[in-house]
């Protein structure tokens, strides 16, 4: 293989696939969310465009492509235009370090199923996924309108606050795996035979609650609570720029679900590893298991949204600062103590 193929063409192909992957998931999620929430509420949901309405997201996209782009008169034009792009590309960026499976051998070459790996991959992913908060606050401020500004402030304080329990929950995983490399964390779970989600259920619950809050999803969707803030930080956006915020939110959900699966549910490992009778589960490629697990957590997002009513903002802040952070700290101490006492 020539160096050009190995260092440019193959990475470019992988990058195209990795950028396409959240986009496809966004399309699937838009359909899934509207249909499932509708069915849970005893409605039908979109079922006209294509079989069971599967082409509805495509129709939505075409509509948004041709929509007029409105910029409020008093808006800061530069920031107003930059922020959707910032939100979009920062939500894609973190996928660079998320592995999709063990390296695959094709003929004589080995293909790694990640674009870049790093010994501190986990920290990089957490950091990169938080950049989008800048896009949110820029967009909310640049609109120069009351609801976006309020929504942006809420979003920032919510994302920041919930980052602390996320960090503490992730810390327990790093503590057990003794590594911040995402591939290494999955390998450690394979070696230990127990997925960390079952070993440390409290960490998983804390991480999941914080993840729902960080993606601004119901019941923590205060930044875009339509009953009080119209549409939150993207009230003034229309057309494709509005779609960018929407797509970034869904891409972020896919990212968080991938992280949950990697950190707590063994990534691409098949379930029931030790059981000999179920060895046929290993015949299914790891990537399929990975996708199935991710889809489960994406479904869980929709399920939670259809089940729970929205929080009030002060109870949201109280939940994180007075319940989740002490709980996560105590959980971390218990994990560390158990490890050192054994």
């Amino acid at each position, binding site marked *: 293989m020539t160096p050009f193929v190995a260092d440019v063409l193959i990475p470019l192909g992988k990058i195209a696939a990795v950028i396409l992957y959240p986009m496809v998931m966004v399309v699937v999620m838009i359909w899934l969310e509207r249909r499932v929430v509708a069915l849970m509420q005893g409605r039908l949901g979109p079922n006209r465009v294509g079989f069971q309405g599967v082409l509805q997201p495509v129709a939505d996209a075409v509509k948004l492509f041709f929509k007029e782009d409105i910029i409020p008169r008093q808006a800061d034009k530069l920031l107003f235009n930059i922020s959707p792009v910032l939100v979009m590309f920062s939500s894609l960026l973190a996928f660079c370090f998320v592995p999709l499976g063990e390296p695959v051998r094709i003929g004589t070459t080995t293909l790694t199923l990640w674009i870049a790996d790093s010994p501190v991959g986990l920290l990089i992913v957490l950091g990169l996924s938080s950049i989008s908060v800048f896009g949110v606050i820029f967009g909310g401020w640049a609109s120069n309108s009351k609801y976006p500004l309020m929504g942006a402030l809420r979003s920032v304080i919510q994302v*920041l606050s919930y980052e602390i329990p996320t960090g503490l929950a992730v810390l327990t995983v790093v503590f057990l795996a003794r590594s911040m490399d995402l591939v290494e964390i999955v390998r450690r779970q394979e070696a230990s035979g127990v997925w960390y989600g079952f070993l440390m259920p409290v960490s998983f619950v804390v991480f999941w609650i914080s993840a729902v809050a960080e993606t601004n999803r119901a019941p923590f969707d205060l930044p875009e609570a339509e009953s009080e803030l119209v549409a939150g930080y993207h009230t003034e956006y229309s057309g494709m720029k509005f779609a960018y915020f929407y797509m970034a939110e869904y891409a972020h959900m896919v990212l968080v679900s991938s992280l949950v699966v990697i950190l707590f549910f063994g990534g691409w490992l098949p379930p029931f590893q030790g059981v000999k009778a179920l060895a046929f589960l290993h015949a299914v490629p790891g990537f399929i298991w990975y996708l199935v697990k991710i889809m489960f957590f994406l479904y869980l997002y929709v399920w939670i949204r259809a089940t729970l009513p929205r929080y009030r903002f002060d109870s949201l802040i109280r939940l994180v*600062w007075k319940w989740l952070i002490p709980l996560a700290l105590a959980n971390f101490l218990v994990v560390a103590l158990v490890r050192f006492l054994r």
Partner: protein
Amino acid sequence: MKNYWYFFLFLIVSVLFSVGLLGFVALIRYRRRLVGDKCEPYECGVDPATPTARESTSIRFYLLTLVFIVFEVETFFLFPWAVVHDKLGLFGFVEVLVFLAILLVGYVYAWKAGALEFRRGDE
């Protein structure tokens, strides 16, 4: 160095994708000169009450952000220790307990000072 190159490539491609899609849509979308009430900030159909929305906001947002910085930095100080804790042994663990105790003092102080409240009258 290879990983840096791959990340750089990814950065370029994702920026090109985000900007390019928006640029493409700018070519095909419906265009008209924006005039009149369409460009007013959205306030449920009535004229905006104030010329600008950037007025003073609640101090609580800033207060919580300050507390956040302390906590976030302290949390991420723990990560290197979590990776090498088995090499440091009990000594490292005791060090971390001392570290957390100091963090806890600040936490209790912030709680008692009412920095974690979001509603007037709760503190």
